[in-house]
């Protein structure tokens, strides 16, 4: 029993070396180049041998059952070695080429597709949502499921002009990669926090709460003798920062919570510098379980990108080439005052040249 042994702390994670496939150990840092044998299957050529990667999808929110399935397949096909990717896919690392097809087959039997490499839509970086977070304006796992169902063909193929990265976050904290993704789905609150004057005085530190608001919308006040806070609703843009520091100021509002759609971000330095994601659709009401308006909107954008972008153009690079006016034309998305920046650096987003398309 654990409790009988001496308690250990600050031991840190185990050394990675013991988890590395022998072929990887031998060729560590000595890889020559790689090829993509087919969607989801990579080979990296080293000095003394090659390692084969089979990339399998994962919902990320997974049970120990799912994980045991993965470990069993790893034992059977990849000498027990596998890893996860920075986008939460599972990568089986095979020494033996011949195991590729059987592994893919058995993954399929378990309902797990293979893909996500090169010019594909890979797994969706996402967050907790209604499954675990108090702050969420929408669910994350459900949105990922319906979006990937909708775009499934693009996971297992490589027919897009280039990589397309999708992220989901369930509130403005953006625990995913929303602020720099080709397409992002962001949960939004749209009404100011509702203040619970009963509990606030006990639960929250007034100065910290007041200070938490970027727009100085929060002021101390007193209700029935108790010191609490009030919110100047005109100044509030629903960021939720106050709620993070003060539980008595929840923003959840079933009627008005929902999602917004963002496009054109990227992280890599390839060709163009990293770009932030920009607003495409300010608001779509939550419509669980399958958010059809969201999946339609995303498919529309993806298909226009697939059809019109040139090879090696990321979504944002494509939009920069054709210009935002054309993007709104093509997608049929309405350009509104909400699209015009009014935050800190707003002035830098105005069109300050004659360069324009008509």
């Amino acid at each position, binding site marked *: 029993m*654990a409790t009988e*042994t001496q308690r250990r*702390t*600050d*031991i840190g994670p185990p050394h*990675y070396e013991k988890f*590395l496939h022998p072929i990887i150990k031998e060729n560590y840092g000595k890889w020559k*180049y*790689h090829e993509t044998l087919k969607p989801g299957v990579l080979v990296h050529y080293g000095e003394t041998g090659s*390692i084969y990667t089979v990339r399998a*999808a994962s*919902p*990320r*929110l997974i*049970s*120990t*059952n799912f*994980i045991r399935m993965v*470990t*069993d397949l790893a*034992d059977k096909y990849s000498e*027990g*070695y596998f890893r*996860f*990717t*920075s986008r939460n896919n599972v990568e089986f690392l095979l020494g033996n080429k011949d195991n590729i097809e059987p592994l893919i087959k058995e993954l399929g039997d378990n*309902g797990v*597709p293979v893909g996500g490499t090169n010019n594909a839509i890979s797994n969706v970086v996402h967050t907790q*949502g*209604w499954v*675990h*977070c108090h702050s969420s304006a929408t669910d994350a*796992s459900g949105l*990922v499921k*319906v979006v*990937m169902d909708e775009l*499934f063909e693009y996971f297992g193929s490589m027919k897009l002009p280039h990589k397309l990265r999708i992220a989901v976050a369930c509130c*403005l*904290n*953006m625990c995913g*990669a929303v602020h*720099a993704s080709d397409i992002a789905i962001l949960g939004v609150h749209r009404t100011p926090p509702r203040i619970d004057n009963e509990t606030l005085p006990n639960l929250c530190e007034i100065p*910290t709460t007041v200070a938490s608001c*970027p727009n100085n919308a929060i002021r101390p006040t007193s209700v029935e003798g108790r010191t609490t806070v009030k919110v100047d609703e005109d100044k509030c843009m629903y960021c939720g*920062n106050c709620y993070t*520091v003060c*539980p008595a100021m929840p923003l*959840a*509002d079933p009627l008005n*919570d929902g999602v917004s759609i963002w496009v054109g971000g990227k992280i*890599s*330095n*390839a*060709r163009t510098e*990293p770009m*932030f994601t920009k607003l495409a659709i300010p608001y779509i009401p939550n419509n669980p*379980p*399958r958010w059809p308006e969201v999946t339609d909107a995303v498919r529309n954008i993806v298909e226009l990108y697939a059809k019109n972008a040139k*090879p*090696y153009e990321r979504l944002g690079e494509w939009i920069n080439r054709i210009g935002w006016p054309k993007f709104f034309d093509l997608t049929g998305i309405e350009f509104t005052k909400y699209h015009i920046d009014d935050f800190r650096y707003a002035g830098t987003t105005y069109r300050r040249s004659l360069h324009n398309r008509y």
Partner: protein
Amino acid sequence: MSDDLKTPLLDELEKGPWPSFVKDLKSMAGKSAMVKDLLGQLEKSYRDKRGYWKHGGLVGVMGYGGGVIGRYSALPEEFPGVSHFHTVRVNQPSGWFYTSEAMREIVDIWDEHGSGLTNMHGSTGDMVLLGTVTDELEPTFRALTEKGWDLGGSGSDLRTPSCCVGPARCENACYDTLALTYNLTHNYQDELHRPMFNYKYKIKMSGCPNDCTAAIARSDMGIIGIWKDDIQVDQAAVAEYVDSGLNIQEFVVEKCPTGCISLEGKEIKIDNSECVKCMHCINVMPKALSPGKERGAAITLGAKAPIVEGALFGSVMIPFMKLETEEDFEEMHDLIERIWEFWDEYGTNRERIGEFIERVGLATFLEGVGLDPIPQMVKQPRDNPYIFYEEYFEEGEN
């Protein structure tokens, strides 16, 4: 709630080709009352279009301030199984490499002490063990440490560092991301487990400017591989690409952001003095091109999500530093500690390093951490004339 679980809305998420978390969760619902009530509460969230979690409370394991996210249901009577539903963040190994054996030990522990649900992995990089009760936190921790695992970060501390696959399976790696991640994680165990910063501090390591861990967007400190000298070219392989029908002119030459590549017959020429190390040409022709021989990393500071001053990409503090020897690693420790010290002294509560740098100004920050200003740190010099001159002539001089 009644014993048999009805989830008509969630059931809709069992349909479709993408693996269904609902199916998976249901497969656990038999074994785990927690999972069953989680599904119940989630179904209710789907119906009412809102979450039912209370604001996280402070729970954890003895002597640690971080690593656990407290979570309580707002409907404990209706869903007792999730009245407590805390998260345990377990520090992943560098590069998320596992063996089935090691992974089984973890899931065994989690089946015994928790809900059996996880995120593999959390966005910061941890193994996220999703859902247990307060009383099981300490036992979970003991079981994990016995097998050689430890917790990750949460709260205002060093967050669990993470890195790309790097030299373990990538020809582009310009430094050993796995080794540095291991080194930093172990060197800063105290900062990782015991929040004492103004706010969170995330470190992500990518082996090259492709930045496969999104370091420049999602880490307070990004350590991103880069090279200084000329791109290595294998002209024979270039010729192969030409013969294989790759349109190098259109897809490489014309896509180079600085137009510094030219194709002559089956040979390419690169004016490396104008190359900005964007990786594109190397990405398109990995067999023919690779980063130069003089390799290291650039250090970026300040990336973060928008709350509250707006999202930031990291900005370059050190355009190039070698990361090969022990001394190099120690230089990195020294740099990190100078940064923490200055941030600690002059930063405010809940002020990320990126917001801090913008507030005090880059020039001031550089002085504070003892770095000399160089043009590589900026896109361009100032375009406004509001210069705070610090040297004056006094009567008599000049």
